């Protein structure tokens, strides 16, 4: 493991040479801490703004939502966020468009651009697809989840949720390399297939948080150390004991190709239940889940509905953060 960690350190992400459009959000790796702070400041300002003022911000601007994968939370919150800013939105999904006829991502992007889209929100099952769309259209592209790679707005909304919930911090706390010093975030479950895990694990250590990844080798291979400044702990109780934040992930059955996993055993070892929480976790440990949750698998229903669970708050934060990200994409000052 030491060898892998060393290699991970030596394989820091290569700097991107392509000049992607300003305002795009392809990966959290492209965000500086100043960018993160700016987005969170804008989020607060937009929240406090009068509705009439807010709805004028993106009036007569056009944003396309391009979805190649199903989504409830992300699609709806991006759409509602855009509409609450007065933007015109259009939704294109793979099931009701020329994508079904074989039109390429590039050509679909060029079509949307020709129709006046000034930014594209993309969800796609292929890791890296937003980079292709950004390169070929020159538009700011907002990554709303690409394969197993990234979901940057989820990391931002999770961060804001943590700031809101953790003692001594608030959504208006300054963002710097020590904002989350002393905070341990345990991300448990299907790390292998999770773009949420990658996004959070790449962002939070830069703010000083300690990130522990937890799960069985099938879902959390040693190569996960390639993410960077993270640790692996296989024993859930040992990890949970240290957690200020326990982030639970869904088992992505649709991406399990080839791996065999005994769900009964998984539940016994890794499910977060109220009993486990009560026996192991520190009082006040925040329980997060990006959704969709599968009650009774990675988390019990009772736990999901408990007061220290932030699942619904995360959804609300998603709407708020996505407003700020959209405003930034279109170059509008708040």
């Amino acid at each position, binding site marked *: 493991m030491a060898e892998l960690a060393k290699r991970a350190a030596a394989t820091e992400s290569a700097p991107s040479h392509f000049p992607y459009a300003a305002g795009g959000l392809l990966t959290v790796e492209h965000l500086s801490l100043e960018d993160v702070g700016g987005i969170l400041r804008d989020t607060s300002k937009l929240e406090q703004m009068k509705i009439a003022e807010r709805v004028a911000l993106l009036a007569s601007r056009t944003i396309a939502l391009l979805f190649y994968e199903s989504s409830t939370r992300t699609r709806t919150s991006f759409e509602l966020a855009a509409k609450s800013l007065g933007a015109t939105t259009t939704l294109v999904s793979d099931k009701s468009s020329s994508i079904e006829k074989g039109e390429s991502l590039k050509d679909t992007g060029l079509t949307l651009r020709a129709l006046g889209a000034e930014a594209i929100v993309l969800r796609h099952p292929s890791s890296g697809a937003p980079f292709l769309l950004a390169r070929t259209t020159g538009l700011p592209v907002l990554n709303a989840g690409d394969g197993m790679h990234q979901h940057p707005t989820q990391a931002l909304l999770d961060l804001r949720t943590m700031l809101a919930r953790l003692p001594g911090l608030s959504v208006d706390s300054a963002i710097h390399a020590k904002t989350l010093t002393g905070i341990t975030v345990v991300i448990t479950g299907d790390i292998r297939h999770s773009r949420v895990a990658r996004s959070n694990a790449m962002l939070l250590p830069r703010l000083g948080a300690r990130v522990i990844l937890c799960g069985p080798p099938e879902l959390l291979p040693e*190569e996960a150390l390639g993410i960077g400044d993270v640790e692996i702990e296989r024993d859930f109780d040992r990890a949970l004991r240290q957690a200020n934040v326990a982030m639970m992930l869904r088992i992505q059955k649709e991406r399990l190709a080839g791996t065999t996993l005994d769900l009964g055993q998984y539940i016994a070892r890794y499910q977060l239940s109220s009993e486990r929480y009560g026996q192991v976790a520190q009082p006040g440990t925040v329980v997060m889940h990006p959704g969709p949750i599968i009650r009774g698998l990675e988390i019990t229903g009772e736990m999901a509905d408990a007061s220290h669970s932030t699942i619904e708050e995360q959804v609300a934060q998603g709407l708020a953060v996505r407003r700020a990200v959209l405003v930034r994409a279109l170059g509008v000052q708040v």
Partner: protein
Amino acid sequence: MSGLLIRNGRVVDPANGVDELRDVLLREARVAGIEKPGSFAELRDVEVVDAKGCIVAPGFIDVHVHLREPGQGHKETIASGTAAAAAGGFTTVVAMPNTTPVNDSVEVLQWMLSPDRNAAIRVLAMPAATIGSAGEVQTDFAALATEGAVGFTDDGKPILDPSIMRAALLKAAKLGLPISQHAEDPRFSHGAIMNHGTVAFRLGLRGYPAVAESSIVERDIALVREIAASHPDLKPHLHVQHVSTGAALQAIRRAKADGLRVTCEAAPHHFTLTDEAVGDYNTNAKMNPPLRAEEDRRALIEAILDGTVDCIATDHAPHASWEKEVEFDRAPNGITGLETALGLALRVLHRQHGLTVQRVVALMSTQPAQLIGLSDRGTLRVGAEADIVVFDPTAEWNFEASHSRSKSKNTPFDGAEMLGRVRATICSGRIVYRARSVAS
């Protein structure tokens, strides 16, 4: 003019142990004389190429290229691919059979090798080992060999069934030809998109583990060992294509030490780049086998230095830009390589790792010629085919994909630093490529 005189160059001809300043006289498509500078000064009926400051070597031979014809002329034609080869200093290339239709018959083979294809240099071919490269029914090796096949391969796919592979090795051995194996067990690499490891994890791409390659190499070596033991009169020849992992190289090293006829090739991209080059999903860094980790790259260079690797082969695999301008997991495998092979070999192997220029020439000409049984090429002995490359080993330049003679520009080396530049390429006594700055 009834001849060509290459003057004032340093002749590097590993086949004959030559590394001296020499003038080379070519007549009637043959090497007519190699003498001390000035020896042919009185000749008036020859065209002169001044090779001052350059190395004059037997033309390069690439045992692994995809020329895409028949059937995929939008990617490359035999004419355009061989023009790129000539610009890279190659005088002979071996075309792989994954064309449309697959080169699995005498008809397709004859079509590929026909002068009507307007090849700039010599084209040879390795037809498919099985019909349609489907891995089931062996092609007619004897008939294909009569028509010029220099080996058999299902390249792009492995010959997976061990009984089919054994039969192919046995039959090819009787004809004195190699089986060239794309070593990949798809049961390990199913759905894989790049090298397995930390980079793939970070990018959220499914990884292709090293064992997918080494397990097939180890199995094939066991088959060679068994055939050699049971048929003392035969020397089965396994050639392992584009080796990319330390584990496979170790297996090949042991097989060679045991006296088995097992050869292998290294691709310039595998000794130059690692999986980090995938960067932000650059489909021009996607090929099969994939770019590996740094330890595998180091192992490959080590195997080149210690002689485990027999030749440099480019696996030149052109694809149209629209085919590569797609999601990373949907992009076809392969990159072009003919015009960057020398510049990378000299930069990485010679300058960075101390491999001599003589050894680079041996890996790009002498040894690939021996590998496919070409006695008249890869050598500058008097009487050999007049296939020659003239290159400046100290020229530093940057490759520009837009200047490529290939029909396709899918290379990760656009803008990359090169060491050593081809000044002229001569095939069968004819100048088939000449850099503008060469005086004559």
